[in-house]
Every structure is written in structure tokens, then in C-alpha cells.
């Protein structure tokens, strides 16, 4: 629990009283019973480190912030989800879609890149070919923060 609480977005875990309002608010929990934010908070509190960090459930969070707005304790559940995902990727738990975004970012400075056809269409309708991107600056920043290594070591 304290490992999570000591990360920048994880402090809210300390406030959790297991009331379950987050689960009741969660649009995903309504559809799939395995995704249960209260239960996830519970196993963090119980210190089940491996179970938490290897779970796919933190990746089911939409980051819609409904739970955060409704938590009676100001427990910031959605923020804790970010904290868990940050820890999970360091245990190589990173879904392909997220890894692809990270790879695009490292290579180009953007997560979505216009295709050749889009660039041609843009020119044809009088828009600039593309909006300029500071790719080198992004690469310097990501090297400094260790992000590039996180992606390449996956």
C-alpha cells in the first residue's frame, strides 16, 4: 500500500474505507464483474503486490474520473489507477495498444501521426501539410525521464 501511496498519483489509497462507491460508479464494472475498483483497492491495502501489478484490471479503467468525483473520502481512485499502471509497466505489464502509443511518441514526438494520404488531402484542401513537431526535443526529454528505455526494454 505504501509503495503505491508514495508515488505522485497514489496517495489516495491511504484514504480508502472500502465503501465500494467507486465500483458502483464505474461504467466498466457494470459490464464486467471482474473489474471492481473497490476490490483492486482492497488487494493493494492487503499488500498483494504481484496480484495487483500483474492484473489487467487497472488497464480497464477509462480514466473517466467518475469514481474520483464520487469518492466520499477524496480517495482519488482514478488517480490511484494511474499510479498502479505506472508501477505495472515497470513489471512489464503493458498492453500492446499502450506500448504502441509509447513507441510512436519516442519515434515521432506524437502518438497519432498523419498518413501519407492524409498529408496529401491536407495540401489539397489548403491546410498546412502537417503541424510542426519538435521530435528531437521530445526524444531528449524522454531519454532524460527514462521513458525511451522503458519502451525499448519491453
Amino acid at each position, binding site marked *: 500500500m505504501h509503495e503505491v501511496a508514495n*508515488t*505522485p*498519483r497514489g496517495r489516495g489509497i491511504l484514504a480508502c474505507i472500502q465503501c465500494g462507491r467507486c465500483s458502483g460508479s464505474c*461504467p*466498466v464494472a457494470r*459490464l*464486467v464483474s471482474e473489474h471492481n475498483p473497490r476490490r483492486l483497492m482492497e488487494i493493494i491495502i492487503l499488500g498483494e503486490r504481484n496480484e495487483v501489478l500483474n492484473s*489487467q484490471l487497472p*488497464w*480497464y*479503467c*477509462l*480514466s*473517466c*474520473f*467518475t469514481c*474520483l*468525483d464520487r469518492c466520499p473520502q477524496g480517495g482519488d481512485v482514478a488517480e490511484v489507477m*494511474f499510479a498502479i*499502471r*505506472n508501477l505495472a*509497466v515497470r513489471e512489464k505489464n*503493458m*498492453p*500492446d*495498444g*499502450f506500448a*504502441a*502509443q*509509447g513507441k510512436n*511518441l519516442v519515434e515521432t*514526438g*506524437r*502518438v*497519432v*501521426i*498523419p*498518413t501519407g494520404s*492524409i498529408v496529401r*488531402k*491536407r495540401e489539397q*484542401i489548403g*491546410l498546412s501539410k*502537417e*503541424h*510542426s*513537431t*519538435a*521530435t528531437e*526535443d*521530445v526524444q*531528449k*526529454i*524522454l531519454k*532524460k*525521464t*527514462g*521513458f525511451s528505455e*522503458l*519502451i525499448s526494454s519491453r
Partner: protein
Amino acid sequence: MKYALYWGCLIPARELSYEVSVTKVMPAFGVELLKMEDTNCCAPFGIQSLDYTSWLALAARNLCIGEEMGVDIMTLCNDCYESLLMVNTTLKAHPEVRNQVNEILAEVGKEYKGKIDVKNMIDVLYDDVGVTKVKDAVTNPFTGLKVATQPGCHLTKPKRIHFGVRKFDALDELVMATGAETVNYERREMCCGGPLRGVNDELARDVARIKLVNMKNAGAECIVTVCPFCFLELDLGQLEIRRHFKEEYDLPVLHFAELLRMAMGMKLDDWEIKSHRTPLEPILKDQLKEE
């Protein structure tokens, strides 16, 4: 009114009709949109999930460009908005985090000072331009059109940084200024499902379906959004839902900028109309007739 316009990645790469509509609509209200050069990814939800510090530094670098230009930033995409707004709020409130970020930014010759604010296009239209002026600019009203609004999560939540309820109503009021009606549908504040793309596509589709069902039940004829992710999820998503569930919702999806543009008498080009996966024609009958 001058703003540094932050386009983000998705709109210029996928939603050109939105981009064109913004450049046509905003200057008509005296909003001057200044070009931001050499920006970078805002570090949205997906990147934030991977690394906290990279998020802060990347968003802050964009904020520095706005500061150098001496004007507030206007965003169009909910994810860009959320990322830049949250980082701006955090760095203004916590000098120790700001120092840590500035150490990284020194590598690229930037320094975050905390001198500007971040707004969304809806803030600018609602707070700076005002609903009355928007209404006055409407020449081709969408009289009687029943609209389900989808402001999207990151325009309105978390409430502590967004004053959520007001902003929900802001979009509805702006839509009504175009002559349309808005329907009050169940679970209007719910996510579109988009962030689950790439993790569990079936689940993303199921979340979107709940929204479509509720919108349709409330009598909506179309959807108006401001977020490029909601746009894709609800527009493209309808094709997938038709394939999988054999259900037809036939709810065309428009960006608010597109709706306003047409209400101001500026038609969408043929390629723009066709860039919507769910056909727009049923709701454009009146607009197309005037040809």
C-alpha cells in the same frame, strides 16, 4: 481575443472537417487563433499511464510555448485539454514539482513559469464570446433538431478542476443557440468507451452501445460532441455495433464546430459530409435543400 491554438495529434491526422470548421467559425467571433510552432504530443491518458514525469515534462513544454507567445492556450481535444490543464494546475500549485520539471526542460532550453491559462474551445465560446453573440451569428438555424450532447469526460471531470456541471450545461446552451433542442438522456455524464480501445475493443464497443441506446430512447436525432475520441467511438463505433449486434441506431455525429459552422451559413464540403461514417444526410435535409 487572442489564443495560442493547440491542435494536438488526432484532429490534424484524422478529423480534418473539425479542423476546417474551427478555422472558419472562431475568427467570425473576433477570436484570433495564433499558430503554435514545434509543439509535441500533449501526453494523454495512454502516456500518463506509462510514466508520470514524462507526462509533466511533455505537457509543460507545450505550456512554455504558450508562455513565450504571451497568450493563453486554446485546446480542441478533451485529452489535450485535460493533460495541459492538469499539468498547469499542478505546476502552479507545487513549486517543488515545477523545479523538478524545469530541470528536465533545461535540456531543451525551456523554462515553465506558470504565466498562462489553458482553455477549451467551449470555454472560449461560452465565457469569452457568450451565448448571445453565438445566437446572433446563426443564420440557418437547426430548428427542431433533437440533439444528444456528449461533452466527454475530460471536458467536465474531475469536477475540482473543471466545475463540471456548468460545463455540461455550457455545451447544451451553445447547441440550443443554433436553434436545435437538446434531449436529456440517461447517464449523459458517462464515458464513450474510447479509452478501452487497444485493451479490450469489445468492452469499448459495449460502453458506447449503452450511450447510443440511451440517446435513442430519449428521442435524439443526432449526437454533438467536442472530443475527437468521443467522435470516433460513437461514429465509427456504430458500424461495429451494427455488424455485431445487428442493431441500427442511425445517429449522425457532429463536432460542435461543424454544427455551428452550418448554422452560420457555411456549408460542409462534400468530402467533409462523407468523412462521417454514419450518414449525415438525414439531418442536413434543410441545409442541403438551399443549394
